[in-house]
């Protein structure tokens, strides 16, 4: 065991290295590229000698190759981000149906248009219904640890589905944090080599993979099978999380909570900004407010029972969505509402906030304001309309840019 300062990207690469991956189909994209560069350098230096990496011509091909190799029975790692995830989206859905276990690290980045490099969760949420399981991280340590857990989850015979480990671009990908790197022997105990059993292409044992079906009955059968396997993953994740804690002493529940026991109002959110919410919770507690944080780490499968358990008896929930379903609102808000509606003891109010799009910061004051608005809503039992976080100063800045653009354009045409 050693402790190092690592970026989230390096932590992801360490996860792949410790998992002893056999194969890495790759394609560069900001802010993910450091992951594949790190792995490539280790292969060249002999530190990851048993691994083969191949740079494909697109993410669509990269995910196809990952699925093809996993279907042939090797341990596969790959990584992408944003536009890359969307470019490969056909294959994200497709390979999930192949029921092949592998791990993809997605480094979240906002989607075009406008094009940006900075993070939000619309990219990863576009994969929400694909059949890939999703683990969302908020620290660099979590990225490394989740990658190891993701292999156990993916390869479990009750699951057999690919898993995405998600981290935020910049805030985690390029931010150095102290990370404990586990000993390879300990990792081996937690994650033994992949035993593919019936997942392979071999001479004399022909298999037909991903064949067409005719009619809705066969189609529904296989889709339901995939769904039920994903649902199994809730229980399997609990087992894995306990096993991980036993070996490494770090526990990652499917639903992380912070100071929720006696909380009346809780923040509900995913990703690296949740660490800011923790800080805000501490300050609000200092001021005598009973506020906590609930953070689903597992988004697919959605751990509804655990979420209901931790939210029962709370007065109000501030759902902070770092995404925007255009024409509807926050995705997490809708997910949470469907998990809680009509349940005994469920919080009376869920207040929806959209924040952190394209890496827009969420200030401490905004957390305080969201807690206060949610508290008031709980008191009045009146739910305010969803709030798109934006300050007057920001609007002034944008207006200034527009004024500059206007002047420039007039200047150019004269």
């Amino acid at each position, binding site marked *: 065991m050693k402790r190092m300062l690592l970026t989230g990207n390096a932590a992801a690469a360490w996860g792949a290295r410790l998992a002893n991956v056999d194969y890495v189909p790759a394609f560069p994209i900001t802010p993910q590229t450091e992951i594949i560069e790190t792995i490539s350098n280790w292969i060249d230096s002999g530190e990851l000698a048993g691994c083969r990496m191949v740079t494909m011509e697109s993410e669509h091909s990269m995910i*196809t190759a990952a699925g093809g190799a996993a279907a042939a029975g090797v341990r596969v790692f790959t990584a992408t981000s944003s536009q890359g995830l969307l470019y490969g989206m056909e294959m994200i859905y497709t390979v999930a149906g192949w029921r092949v276990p592998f791990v993809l690290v997605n480094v979240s980045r906002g989607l075009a248009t406008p094009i940006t490099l900075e993070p939000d969760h619309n990219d990863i949420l576009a994969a929400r219904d694909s059949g890939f399981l999703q683990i969302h991280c908020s620290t660099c340590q979590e990225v490394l640890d989740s990658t190891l857990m993701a292999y156990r989850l993916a390869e479990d015979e009750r699951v057999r589905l690919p898993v995405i480990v998600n981290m935020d671009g910049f805030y985690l990908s390029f931010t150095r944090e102290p990370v404990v790197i586990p000993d390879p022997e300990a990792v081996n105990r937690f994650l033994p080599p992949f035993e593919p059993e019936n997942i392979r*292409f071999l001479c004399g044992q022909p298999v037909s993979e991903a064949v067409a079906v005719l009619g809705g009955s066969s189609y529904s059968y296989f889709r339901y099978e995939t769904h039920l396997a994903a649902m199994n993953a809730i229980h399997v994740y609990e087992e894995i999380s306990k096993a991980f804690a036993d070996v490494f002493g770090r526990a990652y529940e499917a639903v992380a909570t912070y100071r929720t026991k006696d909380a009346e109002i809780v923040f509900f959110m995913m990703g690296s900004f949740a660490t800011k919410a923790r800080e805000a919770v501490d300050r609000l507690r200092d001021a005598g407010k009973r506020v906590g944080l609930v953070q689903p780490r597992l988004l697919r499968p959605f751990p509804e029972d655990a979420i209901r358990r931790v939210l029962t008896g709370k007065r109000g929930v501030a759902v902070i969505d770092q995404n925007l379903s255009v024409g509807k609102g926050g995705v997490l808000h809708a997910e949470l509402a469907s998990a809680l509606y009509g349940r005994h003891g469920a919080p009376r109010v869920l207040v929806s906030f959209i924040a952190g799009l394209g890496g827009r910061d969420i200030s401490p004051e905004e957390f305080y304001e969201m807690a206060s608005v949610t508290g008031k809503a709980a008191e009045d039992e009146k739910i305010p309309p969803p709030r798109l976080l934006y300050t007057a100063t920001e609007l002034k800045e944008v207006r200034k840019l527009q004024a500059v653009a206007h002047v420039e354009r007039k200047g150019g045409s004269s």
Partner: protein
Amino acid sequence: MSDPRFKTMKDLPSVHLLGAGTSMCAGCGGLEILHEIYDIMGEKTVVVNAAGCMTLLASYPFTPFGGSWLYTSMASAPAGAQGVRDAMDILIEKKRIKPEENLDVIILTGDGAAYGMGLSATSSAIERGLDFLYLCYDNEGYGNTGQQYSEATPHAARTATSRGPRGFPGYKKDLFEIWAAHRPAYAATVIAAEPLDLARKIEKARGIKGPRLLISLSPCPTGWGYDPKDSIEIGKLAVKTGIWPLKEYADGKVVHTHFPHPRLSVEEYLSKQGRFAHLFRPERNEALLKEIQAMIDAYWGRVR
């Protein structure tokens, strides 16, 4: 370079490996070429398929293949082949499977994928030197959706999306030359109607490692408008009129494996297909017929 295994038609495999009763159309020229290739390649193979007519060969729970099969998507079959090939190499290298458990990887794709959406993945797989056999069954249109024109459609052909009096205004893309420009280990044009030529090419390709690609003109009774019983005849005419040259690329050179002599008029080929009927009725379109003949003449003029 003549191969000792296939000297005459009598040397062709007499045992047929591909199961019958598939959902392909009667007289499918693509299925015919697949039969001939599979008989030689055998069941120690995994067929990686791109979306097209042939995707329906393996329909749950039936398959005509004695070997393995993996359907991918329309654009990325070569990438699927890359993953499977690399994984098998890794497994053999790490002694997790025995070398004799290895499979040859065959990509099976239509012209819609090979000429268009899948070209980027194909180009890159060749560039990476992937060890694979690639078969494009080229029926010169998006056949599985009802024969709309594709980048493989020949000039003047009537398709579901080129129904005008002059047919398809574009020109068939020269995929063989595009492949050859990549300097692959092997590339060839083939046709089911010339099984001996095909068998020799397959046998040659089998003995080489690296990217090996085949385009087969695949007469399509449904899309081209002729009686299914005439598929082989149409294929033979494609060769005899010189509209489908049989050739191969190896060691940096293109060599024609057959010279049509005497070369028949292209009208012999065109007039037997509904997709070219508008060139003959209600009246002959001399200009278009001349243009098509001139293109073929110019091609063979360059070859000689």
